[in-house]
């Protein structure tokens, strides 16, 4: 039975290879959430990819590039692994990309190791993913990469005591650990570490407790969407800002949900690697093209993760075609200009080293929209979580 099936597979593969040779199309499999509560990620990736293709054409060097989209739904490693297997064996993709959730990325590690497929992570932010396979490249960020500069900056600003309030789930706990370690190493003090259940709808008790403790600032990490709306509203209503307790966050004021936060968001301080209002030629070209192609779409960190990821894939295809190990070699150490600023793919951690910006939410006088205005920059931050 096995022998017959092997023969069948071999025959089918030969037939496929025959087709492939003439066209020289290199396929990129994009695994991301396109349905369910996390579908925004998929939409952001896809828009960014299409913008990139519209700007640069569908050819990298002599090779034509084709994207194959697959839906992962939410965190679902079983499904993602079988999708990846299918992409690699049946669709014969040469590159994989996407990956919003850490377990989904981890699930493909043994596969891409065996098939030597360069895999570009657009989002998943746990440092240790890249240790599982040397074919992982990451164009997003890691939790440490933004939390530690924030701790550094806060300490330099004279903030000596902080209360942390994070949602009680994986990324929240990672953010708490990273911020706390970095802040205390520098001599700051975390007076209280509060973990709030993911389903919290009323943050008053937590923020009241913070208010009573009178720290210099409150660090927070929340999943995007409704919790952030409620949290920032409660932060203002309970007068923490008036008490002089500063708000320190990361992705809370990301662009897709920013307008929804309303006046309550003005003055919130965050440290992050991308602001839609970043002042550069590349960013203006990117956001203008995005607005032109998809009216109503807003660029945020997941768009730019995908945009830069595709840029990296184009670079690898141009230099190495479908040769996986050579492509990785070509990608490592590459420096380029992204809409977020200068990027360098760090050869050791295989995550991009990038500027982390300290931003404050402002109402832009010209457009009347809320924007993350960059007030400070910590240049060339690598993945600080790699050696932790």
């Amino acid at each position, binding site marked *: 039975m*096995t022998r017959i099936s092997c023969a069948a597979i071999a025959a089918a593969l030969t037939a496929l290879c025959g087709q492939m040779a003439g066209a020289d199309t290199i396929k990129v499999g994009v695994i991301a959430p*396109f349905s369910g509560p996390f579908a925004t990620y998929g939409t952001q990736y896809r828009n960014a990819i299409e913008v990139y293709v519209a700007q640069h054409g569908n050819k990298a060097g002599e090779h034509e590039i084709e994207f194959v989209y697959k839906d992962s739904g939410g*965190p679902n490693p079983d499904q993602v692994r079988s999708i990846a*297997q299918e992409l690699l064996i049946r669709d014969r993709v040469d590159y994989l990309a996407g990956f919003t959730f*850490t377990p989904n990325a981890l699930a493909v590690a043994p596969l891409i190791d065996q098939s030597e497929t360069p895999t570009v992570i657009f989002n998943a932010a746990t440092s240790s993913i890249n240790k599982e396979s040397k074919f992982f490249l990451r164009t997003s960020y890691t939790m440490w990469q933004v939390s530690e500069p924030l701790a550094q900056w806060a300490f330099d600003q004279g903030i000596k005591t902080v209360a942390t309030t994070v949602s009680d789930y994986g990324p929240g706990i990672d953010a708490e650990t990273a911020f706390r370690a970095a802040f205390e190493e520098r001599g700051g003090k975390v007076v209280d570490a509060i973990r709030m259940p993911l389903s919290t709808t009323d943050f008053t008790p937590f923020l009241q407790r913070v208010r009573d403790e009178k720290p210099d600032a409150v660090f927070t990490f929340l999943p995007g969407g409704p919790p952030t709306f409620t949290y920032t509203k409660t932060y203002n209503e309970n007068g923490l800002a008036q008490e002089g307790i500063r708000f320190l966050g990361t992705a809370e004021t990301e662009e897709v949900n920013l307008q929804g936060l309303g006046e309550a968001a003005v003055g919130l301080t965050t440290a992050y690697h991308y602001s839609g209002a970043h002042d550069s030629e590349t960013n203006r070209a990117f956001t203008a093209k995005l607005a032109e192609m998809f009216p109503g779409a807003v660029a945020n960190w997941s768009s730019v993760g995908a945009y830069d990821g595709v840029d990296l894939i184009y670079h690898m295809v141009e230099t190495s075609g479908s040769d996986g190990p050579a492509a990785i070699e070509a990608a490592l150490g590459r420096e380029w200009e992204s809409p977020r600023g200068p990027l360098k793919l760090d050869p050791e951690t295989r995550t991009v080293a990038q500027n982390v910006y300290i931003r404050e939410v402002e109402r832009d006088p010209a457009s009347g929209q809320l924007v993350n205005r960059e007030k400070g920059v910590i240049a060339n931050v690598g993945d600080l979580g790699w050696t932790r």
Partner: protein
Amino acid sequence: MKSWLTPFLVLALAGAAFLLFPYNLAFLTRILIMILLVLSLDLVLGFAGIATLGQAAMYGTGAYAAGLFAVHASGNPLAGLLVGAFAGAALALVSGLLLMRTRGLTLIMLTIAVASLCLEAANQLRGLTGGADGLRGIRMQPVLGLFPFDFAGQTGYWYALSVTVLVFAGLAVLTRSAFGLSLRGIHESPARMAAIGVSVYWRQVAAYTIGGGIAGIAGALAAQITQLVSLESYSFTISAEALIMLILGGAGRLYGAVIGTVIFMVVHHVAAANDPFNWLFVIGALVLFVVFLVPNGLVSLPLAVTRLWKGARHARA
């Protein structure tokens, strides 16, 4: 005379699927794992009439037990399966002692609660389970020391198929035994069964425990083949989807579990592959269609057609 025909046909189809879809083996293996889970639910809900929406509790526990066993003790797949089965059965037994004292909505709520408790426990025990990142580092030895897990998933497929066939056969025997018949009786009328001297409570605990063991095996298989266990194995979605598959195929029939799972997963797969953005509509339409037009599940479709045909023949004669 024809009792051997159906299993033979199903096995032949499984073999044919292997030859016809050599690129989809990973997906076919997922179907097999899901069939196991739905079979366990069929025993618990379809046969014993225990209303549950928390079968994922035993599935996830089996997955984590097998995963931890592989990481810390041994990569032997069969030993891992036993560990998974034992863990699933143990959880079902312990929770079942309490759950089987309740009925109806209370029971449903409590089964959901058990799964949520497991989920939160796994989330909190990050050092052990890896929390939201998932349990990694599962490396499996070859099955029986002979067949290493390969890239295309051939070993995984045959391994999962063998386990599924064995479990199915075991359940076929079990449901035809006196014990199985008493479960059916309990499903129809617990009061009457009690009146003829059957200990309804203990029979239900036993059925729930066996079902838990099978769900544990399904979880263990998933852990061994994906080489990663995530918190999602405890998710409500898994329990709910298993229930939809069972109702789709027809509860209380072993083949119902198989047919429902295959149809649901294939439709899901094809729809999601063709339109990764809007495929949920197709699934919704399918479920509505079956619930309204074939309320007993797809397994009753040929029966209904045969009856209709026979009826027509009798009418003519």
